[in-house]
């Protein structure tokens, strides 16, 4: 079997990329590491044959640029299994590459096995209420769930460098804005998340000093994002972002099943909610039936003192 990992050079130091390489090693066969880079680099820590595709726009790429670069780097013969860490790169180009190469695509994969010659991928479905195993009879692009696979320890090795040359234009007048909520929830050790139970934007904002006391990133439920209290990139849930922090605090979140699934990778979950019957308590290690506004003044004093 021919498998390949596709990643950005910038992300190679991160666990998810190393996990993808770990999975590739475990599966064995013909291995390629396809790395998108904004500048050439001789030695790259990766697994298998290492190919570096270089284009200056890959620093912070437009989806169109990233896609065209990846198509050129993959070449005419795609692998049977193309692995990408779940995240923004997969979001931009994973499925589109699959369509281009006539492959199928699966994301949020947390287990890959070889069964009588066929690759079987496991993922969640129905808002995390079910797990499915999908058998591949043709090429597949897979997005891998962070934390689900043992990481490889790739050693620096010489890469074959390909100048990707001129690429078609992406979007015009492009600009990116990364605001204060720019914490990457995927890497956060502690997350404080707020939901509709906080009642208002001001209520949600009251989590900010709490999060900064804990050195935590700020997350949100779908309801808080729909209300516009938090930005979409802060949304935790299977339909938003999957997180796996050491500690997850859910404040005023009742616990829709997709949210529970999105936070299920957390080591410890603490929930504060006024409704003692809220489903969040089913998925928490520690629960407080309480009004956050009653708790917070005391808690602030205790934590600051």
């Amino acid at each position, binding site marked *: 079997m021919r498998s390949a990992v596709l990643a950005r050079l910038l992300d190679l130091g991160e666990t998810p990329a190393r996990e993808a390489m770990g999975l590739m090693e475990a599966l064995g066969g013909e291995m390629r590491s396809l790395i998108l880079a904004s500048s050439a680099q001789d030695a790259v820590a990766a697994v298998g044959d290492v190919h570096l595709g270089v284009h200056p726009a890959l620093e912070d790429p437009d989806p169109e640029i990233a896609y065209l670069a990846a198509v050129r780097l993959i070449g005419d013969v795609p692998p049977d299994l193309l692995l990408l860490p779940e995240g923004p790169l997969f979001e931009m180009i994973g499925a589109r590459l*699959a369509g281009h190469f006539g492959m199928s695509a699966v994301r949020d994969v947390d287990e890959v096995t070889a069964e009588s010659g066929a690759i079987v991928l496991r993922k969640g479905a129905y808002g995390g209420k079910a797990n499915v195993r999908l058998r591949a009879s043709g090429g*597949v692009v897979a997005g891998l769930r962070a934390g689900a696979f043992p990481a490889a320890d790739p050693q620096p090795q010489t890469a074959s460098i390909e100048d990707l040359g001129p690429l078609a234009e992406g979007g015009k007048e492009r600009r990116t804005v990364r605001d204060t909520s720019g914490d990457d929830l995927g890497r956060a050790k502690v997350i404080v998340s707020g939901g509709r139970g906080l009642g208002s934007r001001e209520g949600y904002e009251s989590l900010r000093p709490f999060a900064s006391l*804990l050195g935590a990133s700020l997350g949100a439920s779908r309801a808080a994002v729909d209300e516009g209290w938090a930005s979409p990139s802060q949304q935790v849930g299977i339909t938003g972002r999957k997180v796996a922090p050491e500690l997850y605090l859910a404040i005023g979140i009742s616990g829709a099943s997709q949210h529970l699934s999105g936070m299920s990778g957390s080591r410890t979950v603490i929930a504060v909610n006024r409704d003692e019957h809220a489903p969040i308590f089913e998925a928490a290690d520690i629960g407080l039936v309480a009004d956050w506004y009653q708790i917070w003044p005391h808690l602030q004093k205790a934590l600051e003192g």
Partner: protein
Amino acid sequence: MRILCFVKAILDPEAPPGAIRFPGKVESGDVSTVLGPFEGNALELALQISEASAGSFTAVAMGDGAQDVALRKALALGAGRAARIDVATGFVDPLGAARRLEAAAKELGGADVYIFGRQAGDWDMGVTAGLFAGLLDLPFVPLVQQAEVAGEGLRLRREIPGGYEESLRTGPIVLSVTNGPRTLMRLPKVKDVMLANRKPIDVLKPAEVGENLTLAEIAQAQVTRQSRMITGDAASQAAQLAAELRRFLVTGGGN
């Protein structure tokens, strides 16, 4: 602009735990079928673009008659036409799905903007829009939160980690839409709902396509934990919580 918006009705994502069971297959019990939440966001965006460009949009679903819930909603919100690709309900390889949608899009005369919800809440695949873009070789912008018509093009805002990207795109394009304040589906007007119930839904024959993925197994997932409750009045609850948090910050390897 000509717009095709792909919608899907799914088993109620808010059904209580255990109402849908997965003993090797999907047993839906008496759980109702509803428009998927991200498809609601997609419809809203389709409506905004069609209003701003003085156009109309066509809604397309794939599945059996249960999908009419989604198409009726689309019609009530202002879709000019609704079509259903008639296939049996159940798992479909997303590549196969995208190929059938591609065929249907051709049959319906193509479009300038193809709009998908970010992810359908049944199989949670979230790849059909990208696959479709790859098959048609069209640009693809994922996780769109906001779209404005700007001349011949669209000014799109999409989610990126910790913020957003804005850009102007012209020419045919495929979008996947995520939730946010600007894509919250509006309530259809009752007159339109009543009219929508009388409008026809075109039934399309599915294209013959090959599949790369088959469903090997489906099983119930476990997300519950044993929970310890901290009780008392607010002051004592806060004190106990503070103690837990301090213990965690010291030993739990926090920041």
